[in-house]
């Protein structure tokens, strides 16, 4: 079955067309036929790019004002008689949508129906920057492809197995009851994918594995996975908590917020922008949120670039060690995400000093595993260290297929 995977953001729609089936999943042989994106929706000129293996990339500029036009443009290009891949939209068997926040409503991927859609709408308050755009994509796809089944795959769902001791904050319990203030965690689809791949690479059933997975990108989170289930994760009520990120502060004493609001005369909106957009690697270095640039500048002797990198790696290390404690032992650490997949020095520095736990990184293997799967711990290490490029779209396509086929989606 061909599944169209849609990731609708504020001003972009990213998509993949993936050929999958239960049999292909079994063999891990399902692959993307095409990947593309419509960027700058609502801007002066939007850009639509499409990559199909073995063909030159297609790039189209034009005016695309909203998500429905973007998805219509995607369908038009996919069915284009010369440049497209399918003859007719009816070849699309199902559509899978990435949805950021499911709150406590959904603990797994769901077929979309009016009730599920309204559940997603109820979570808008928890993810005002994401869920409305996801909903816009869902609505547009429903109108453009009314006869094709659609599913939602949630970033938060994988973490719903966390125990209360991990997801509750030390606040009056009544606030959890009234407002559902708790840790939700994000990047769940990515953590779930790499945990599944790690089990395959290690040749062990995931029911035996205790993993710490590190999704390190512009947004970054760590997850403790006990026998296939998320038991703790570093992002919290929102994606602001946890690691130092590209432009987000990560963990912070909440008193700092009120102190700064007073000292700098900031309102709520400004302080939220400060913590989400001006902090992290960008804020500390004063240079950039791009780890590649920071590594280059550190090489040239830039002190605050170096400090930002040190802080980033130190936080990863703290979480890895803490989660090993939470899991009561550790079989493997997994790196994924843009930085996790492509920055050997960050992987090495993040795990430095954890030799006492049996964690080590082999220099040659580490340098060799860039943008591809590989083991970077030395042979015979007590704790294996893996690099696994994430593939959230594949998880979304597979869950969508499973829902259409009526088989369980967890796994």
């Amino acid at each position, binding site marked *: 079955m061909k599944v169209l995977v849609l990731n609708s953001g504020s*001003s972009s729609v990213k998509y993949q067309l993936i050929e999958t089936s239960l049999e292909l999943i079994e063999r891990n042989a399902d692959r993307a036929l095409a990947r593309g994106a419509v960027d700058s929706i*609502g*801007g*002066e000129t939007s850009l639509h790019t499409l990559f199909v293996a073995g063909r030159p990339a297609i790039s189209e500029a034009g005016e695309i*004002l*909203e998500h429905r036009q973007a998805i219509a443009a995607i369908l038009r290009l996919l069915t284009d008689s010369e440049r497209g891949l399918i003859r007719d939209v009816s070849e699309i068997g199902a559509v899978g949508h990435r949805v950021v926040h499911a709150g406590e409503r959904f603990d797994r991927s769901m077929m979309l129906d009016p009730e599920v859609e309204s559940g997603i709408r109820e979570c808008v308050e928890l993810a005002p920057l994401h869920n409305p755009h996801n909903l816009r994509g869902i609505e547009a796809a429903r109108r453009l492809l009314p006869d094709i089944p659609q599913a939602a795959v949630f970033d938060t769902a994988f973490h719903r197995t966390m125990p209360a001791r991990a997801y509750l904050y030390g606040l009056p319990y009544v606030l959890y009851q009234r407002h559902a203030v708790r840790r939700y965690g994000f990047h769940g689809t990515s953590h779930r994918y790499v945990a599944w791949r790690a089990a395959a690479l290690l040749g062990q059933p995931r029911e035996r594995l205790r993993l710490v997975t590190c999704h390190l990108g512009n947004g970054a989170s760590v997850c403790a996975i006990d026998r296939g289930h998320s038991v703790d994760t570093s992002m919290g009520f929102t994606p602001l908590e946890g690691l130092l990120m590209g*432009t987000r502060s990560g963990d912070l004493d909440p008193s700092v917020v009120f102190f700064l609001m007073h000292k*700098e*005369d*900031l*309102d709520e*909106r*400004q*302080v939220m*922008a*400060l913590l989400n*957009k*001006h902090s992290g690697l960008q804020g500390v270095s004063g240079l950039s949120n791009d780890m590649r640039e920071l590594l280059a500048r550190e090489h040239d002797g830039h002190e605050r670039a170096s400090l930002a990198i040190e802080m980033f790696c130190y936080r990863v290390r703290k979480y890895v060690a803490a989660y090993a404690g939470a899991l009561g032992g550790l079989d493997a650490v997994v790196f994924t995400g843009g930085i996790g997949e492509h920055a050997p020095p960050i992987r090495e520095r993040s795990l430095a000093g954890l030799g006492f736990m049996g964690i080590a990184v082999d220099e040659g293997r580490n340098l060799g595993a860039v943008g591809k799967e590989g083991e970077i711990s030395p042979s015979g290490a007590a704790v294996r260290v893996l690099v696994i490029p994430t593939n959230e779209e594949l998880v979304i396509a597979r869950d969508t297929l499973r829902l259409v086929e009526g088989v369980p989606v967890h796994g």
Partner: protein
Amino acid sequence: MEFRKLGVVGGGFMGRSIAEKVAASGIDVLVLEQSDALAVAAREELASSLDAEIAKWGITTAERRALLARVRFTATLADLADADMVIETVTEDLARKQEVMRRLGAACPPDRIFITNTSTLSITEIASASGRPDRVVGMHFMYPVPRSPIVEVVRGAETSNATFATALELARALDKQVIEVFESPGYVATRAMIPFLNEAMHIVLEGVASAADVDRAMRLGYQFKMGPLEYADRVGLDKVLGWMDHLWRELGDFKYRPCPLLRKHVRAGHLGRKSGRGFFEWANGERVDPGAAGGPES
């Protein structure tokens, strides 16, 4: 209705502030000024107020770039003809606003809706000059527009239901809560605020307490974000006097009669923040008198 491009007449404080919010909401804006030189100046003012917002961590440099790319400034009225809607923001003066409506009515296609941003004037009177009074509606935006969560949407006598509904849609697109108002001088917000400002000024005039203490009492005692006199200084004392004079004339109630101290300040050219002096001392848009935030009182 899909809002793709809005026209704004007037590149002053209010016009720029509205343009900033509209652009931040993903809608293109064309701001009309009276001359090329004023258009250039208005653009520079907008850019520098965005710089101030960056200094307050409110936006990033990339967001500033994207926002400025959505706002164009012009001195040619005919450029507004292809805007989906036009918002008029010129000085709170009936004759001037009517003149703008007359010119817009001549320049824009007959189906276009005009919004007048006024805090006290009659929508019905302003709309009468447009040649399409059913397509004119009042929206009283509050300064600073990007931060204020509300807008008063005001029906004139001739405003059609469709026009009113479109104004509500625009408010939603700009993420504003709506206070629906039937035409009446000062609507809700200004009318309730004016006696409050006036009374604070009378307290100072009578020597009961200093301006700083009046403000401190209201700010800390009743949890206002700023005191009434600082608020008046920020708005501009000439503008506040204009509101009061208007309400006093229209409603004839003594509670709106402008405090003599206010009139004295305005006659002396002490207009508040924009002139550097009013009830308080100002420099570069910030209070510099001893009672200012960060000074001895806090």
